[in-house]
Structures are given as C-alpha cells and as structure tokens.
C-alpha cells in the first residue's frame, strides 16, 4: 500500500555476499524443473517482450526488457543445471551469479516489474516470461534482497496476520464499517459455508468497498463469516517473493477456512490475493485445497447466472473498466466483470487494451509499496491514464483494491479528474432486494 510516510527502500536482510549467493542459488535450484528449463531454453533473444512491458514502453530504457530481468535465474540455470552445465563451469563460460549482480537486479525484479504477465502474451516462442521473473524474485528474497518494505510486511503478516500494526485491530474497523453502513457483519461465527477476506487497504482507506461486499452477501443470504485470525486478503509473502512467508500466510487462511468448515473462500476485490490463493496456495502447501476459491466478481456472476442475484439498471453514464492483470490476464476471471456490467446495463466504453491485454495499473507485484519505485511507476501510469481518457468515459471502474490504490495515487500526482470506482460497489448499489 502506498503510504506517504514510508521512505525506506533497501535490502530485507543484511547477509554476507557469499551467503546471498548461496541462498539465491539454492532457491534457483529448487525451481529448475522441466517447465522452467523449457522457458529458459526457448528464448531467441528477439526482444519482443519489451514491446509488451509498460515500463519499457514508457521509458524506452532497454534495461526494462522483461527477459533481461530474468537474467540471474537464466545464468544460474545454464551454469548449474543446463544441458552443458559441467562444460560451462569447467571452462568458465558461464559466470557464477554474484551478490553484486543480484543487488543490481533488485530494481529490475521488484521496482520495475508488477508481475502483470503481459510480456508472456507477446512472446513468439510462448515463453512464460513472468514466471521466470517470479523465479528470479524468489531467489532474491532468499538472498535477503527483496525490498525491505515488502519483506518487513510479509514477516509481520506471517506472525500477526496483519502486514503492519494497524491503528486499531481490523475486527474493530470491520465492526465499525458494519455500524456505519447499518449492516450486521458476521465475525468468527463457529461454522459457515463461506470464509470472506477483506483487503487491508480497503479496511483502512475504502470502507465503502468492504461494506458493498457485505451488502451483496447479505442480500444473497449467504452463510458467511469473517475470521479474526485470517482477515487480510493480501499475501505479502507473495509480494516479497518469500516462499516460506507466503506459505505461512497461506496456511493461516487455509486453517481458518478449515476451522470454519467453509467450502468456499471468497477473495475480495484484490488481484494478487486471488493469484496467491486461487493459483499458488495449493502449490505452495503441496496439496489440494479443501475448499474452492472464488473472486467476488466471479461469485456474483455465478449468482447472477443462477438467477439469485437481481440487478437494476444504472443510469446512462459512461464507464470504462480496467481489467486487473492478476484477475483477468493471469487469473482467468475473464467474463465475470462484464457479465455484471451487462446485467446492470452499464454503458461501457472499452479501453484500447482490454481484457487479457490490458496494461497494468502500475502498482501490482508490491510496486505500490516500494517508495523508490514511485517516479518510474508514474511514468507507466501516465500512459494508462491517457488510455483511459481516450475512451471519453465519465467513470472509471475496476475490481481490484491494489489497482484502485495505484490509480488514486496517480490521480493525485497528475491532478487527474477521475478516481477509480469499485465494481462491487456499483453492484451493491443496484441490487434488487
């Protein structure tokens, strides 16, 4: 989350260079599977991935070429695990990844990559470039080179459930939201079908978005509950690329869902929380999840299709919609947002780059939290704001709280005349009881 007070950017842990190298290598080696190898081996150095990356397009600085960001991982693979690794090692043809090199790559792997995955769609070889960058980030995290902002919050969340000590406990904030909006919020019910999570950023900055989610669940008479021991949707372990911390934070949610007897965990408007829980949780704990994971828009679109959710028509104002990368491009929640908008008769003016090809908000992958990345982020965001303006839409809407934070910050910086709105809030405002 972008906070005006944070000023630190640096390394998460003070380790000796040799220790950094060992830790990074151990992490890289853990990720050398056939899939990673195929992705690494297939690169033809065409540079096309640069043409998909908002950081390269905005700056035209070749260091932001996505495949270059994966270079330490690639170099480690060639030296340690590739087909001719012993040969490369013997003749010194592939140098060891050094601590200095890793430090140089910190900005490329964290500040200038939102893990949006657009680069993976342009590759003529079909390489999953974003996965290679993620593998690089994992190595950096183990080497103590993830930015401190991310790692400190990941550690705090793994220990306490909250990425930072909140001004007040989140359950109190949640209860207040219920009181302010006249809705009863079930917290720590002994049993429920659905475990609901909340974006920490919305709890603190956009309570109306949390209230909207609760309002629609109540209207649908869903049997749900929040849990005080697993309230926060974001997984800072994922942002910080720490497998260990991501696993601990994931475990917290999995255990809470089990205790509740939930068959469904509902992810609120948060893209990275969706990736972390829907696509990475089972992989990181090494077993299938005992419940389903759905994004709130997916869930609502399902209820709509089943005839349980009835929606009224919005006025004729025009809207444009930003497809959050983690939900749409990488997550596959492709049709749900538009199904909801269609049902409300939203006058939608699509962006030039939409659905799977949408440009990122600029703040994903933890970039919102990295203070040092702010000037670079603004350059990428400027391009996105122009694209939004070009639609001529009066309103601008999305379904991810991280994206909303990024756009709100950019709007203030550029004195932009729009603010991102929440799709779920629009749904809540148009429910036919």
């Amino acid at each position, binding site marked *: 989350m972008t906070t005006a007070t944070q000023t630190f950017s640096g390394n998460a842990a003070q380790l000796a260079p040799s220790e950094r190298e060992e830790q990074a290598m151990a992490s890289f080696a853990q990720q050398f599977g*056939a899939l*990673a190898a195929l992705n690494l081996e297939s690169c*033809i150095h*065409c540079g*096309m991935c640069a043409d998909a990356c908002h950081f390269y397009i905005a700056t035209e600085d070749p260091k932001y*070429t996505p495949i270059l960001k994966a270079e330490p991982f690639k170099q480690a693979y060639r030296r340690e695990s590739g*087909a001719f690794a012993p040969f490369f090692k013997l003749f010194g043809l592939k140098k060891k990844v050094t601590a200095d090199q890793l430090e140089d790559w910190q900005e490329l792997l964290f500040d200038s990559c939102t893990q949006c995955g657009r680069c993976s769609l342009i590759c003529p*070889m079909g390489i999953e470039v974003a996965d290679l960058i993620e593998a690089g980030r994992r190595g950096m995290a183990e080497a103590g080179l993830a930015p401190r902002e991310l790692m400190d919050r990941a550690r705090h969340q793994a220990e306490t459930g909250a990425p930072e000590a909140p001004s007040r406990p989140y359950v109190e904030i949640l209860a207040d939201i219920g009181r302010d909006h006249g809705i009863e919020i079930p917290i720590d019910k002994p049993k429920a079908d659905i475990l609901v999570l909340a974006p920490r950023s919305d709890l603190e900055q956009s309570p109306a978005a949390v209230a909207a989610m609760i309002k629609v669940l109540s209207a649908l008479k869903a049997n749900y509950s929040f849990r005080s021991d697993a309230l926060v949707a974001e997984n800072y372990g994922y942002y910080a690329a720490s497998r260990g911390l991501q696993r601990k934070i994931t475990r917290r949610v999995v255990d809470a869902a089990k205790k509740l007897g939930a068959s469904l965990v509902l992810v609120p408007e948060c893209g990275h929380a969706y990736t972390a829980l829907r696509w990475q949780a089972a992989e990181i704990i090494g077993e299938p999840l005992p419940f389903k994971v759905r994004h709130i828009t997916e869930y609502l679109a399902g209820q709509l299709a089943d005839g349980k959710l009835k929606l009224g028509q919005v006025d004729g104002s025009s809207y444009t919609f930003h497809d959050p990368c983690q939900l749409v491009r990488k997550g*596959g929640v492709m049709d749900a947002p538009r199904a909801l908008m269609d049902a409300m008769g939203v006058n939608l003016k699509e962006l030039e*780059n939409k659905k799977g090809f949408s440009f990122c908000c600029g703040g994903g992958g933890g970039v919102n939290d990295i203070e040092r990345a702010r000037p670079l982020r603004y350059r990428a965001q400027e391009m996105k704001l122009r694209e939004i303006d070009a639609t001529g839409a009066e309103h601008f809407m999305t379904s991810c709280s991280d994206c909303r934070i990024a756009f709100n910050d950019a709007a203030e910086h550029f004195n932009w005349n729009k603010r991102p709105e929440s799709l779920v809030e629009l749904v809540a405002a148009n429910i036919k009881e």
Partner: protein
Amino acid sequence: MTLLEFSRGPMLHAALVIFVFGVLWRLTTVLLLGWRKHYSEARNPTARAVTGGLIAVGNRSWPHPEFIGRTAFGEAVGYGYHIGLFAIVLLGAPHVVFWKNLFGINASWWYTLPSGIISVISIVTIFLMLIATIRRMRHPPLRRISNFDDWFSLVILYVLMISGVMAVFGIGGRYEIILAIHIISFNALLIWFPFSKLMHAFYIFPSRFINGYMHEKKGAAS
C-alpha cells in the same frame, strides 16, 4: 583427401553425429528435470487445456492485434529470412539432391524451384538477414540482450549463405574451394546447433503448447 572431399565426407558425418546426439541431449536434459504436479483446482478440463495448447502453437505465429503495431517490422523481417532459408534448403535443386543422397531416398515427387528463383530468394534472404543484423545492433532492447550465441549464429549463417551464392554465380575463386567453404559452414552450423539458440527450432512447439495448455487450465489469456 581434398578440402571438398573432407567437407562432405568425414566432417559432414562427424557434424551430423554431433547434431543428432547434441539435440537429443538438449531435449533429454530438459525432460530429466521433471514436471511438477499441480494441485490447484483447474478452471477448465484437460481436453480444453490441450486444445488451448494446440491453439497456442498456431496463434503465437502471428502477433496479437494489441502488439502488432510495435512488432510488425521485426516479425516481418524475421519471418522473411526464415521462409527464405527454408525455401533454399528444401526447394533448391542442389540441396534436394544432397538430402536425397543423405537419406538414401529417390523421392521423385520432391519439387524443386528453378535455380533463377532460388538465386533471387537467396539474395533477398541475405538482404533481410542484413536488416535483422542491423536491427539487432541498433534496437536498444535487442542490443542489450544479444550475446555471443546471437552473433556467432549469424556469422555462420552469413558464411553459409554468401558462399552458396558465390558458388552458384561462380565468383570469388575456384568453385571447389567455394563449395567446400559452403559445406564446411553448413557442417559448422550442424555442430553449433545443439549448443546454441538455434535449438529454438525444436523448442518452439513444445514451449508454445505447454504454456498455452497451462494458461487454458486457468482460463487465462494466451
């Protein structure tokens, strides 16, 4: 033994052995690393994911409309010289004779293009390779990510192409010497192939397929 005899005798045989075993080794070492089991609930069934993989094999040959404005030139040049190379290698009469001899087949159905057309294709291909090389030197991301593999592969390809054209037009010295250089450069290409990015010829389809498959499992964009 003359240089020409050496180039199309023992050197060619050694190059073919290195090529075949090298390629097999490169492919095997990838497979030996093993595939991870996936535990996440798939959005789409396996049959649909397989279809998604097959579609990705085809549709990655053409850029998505969102990208074409930025990539059209590079792709056109790349496709241009690849098509040229394939036409020369597979439809040029001397090369068809070479393949028939190599594999010991008659294959009377094997169509060849007139030598004049192959000559034109060769010159156009060299011209496109030149553009691709200049682009690699001048385009900032390309220049930044290029390494020895890229440059050395290009050098071998230039020697191969230029010596072939010289042999056809009878320029640059004795025909036997030029032809020997042409065959030696082909042998060098075979030897270099498994060590280099030229392996993309074998990786391209599995790479596209597997990532298309994985994306479709999630219902993600591909």
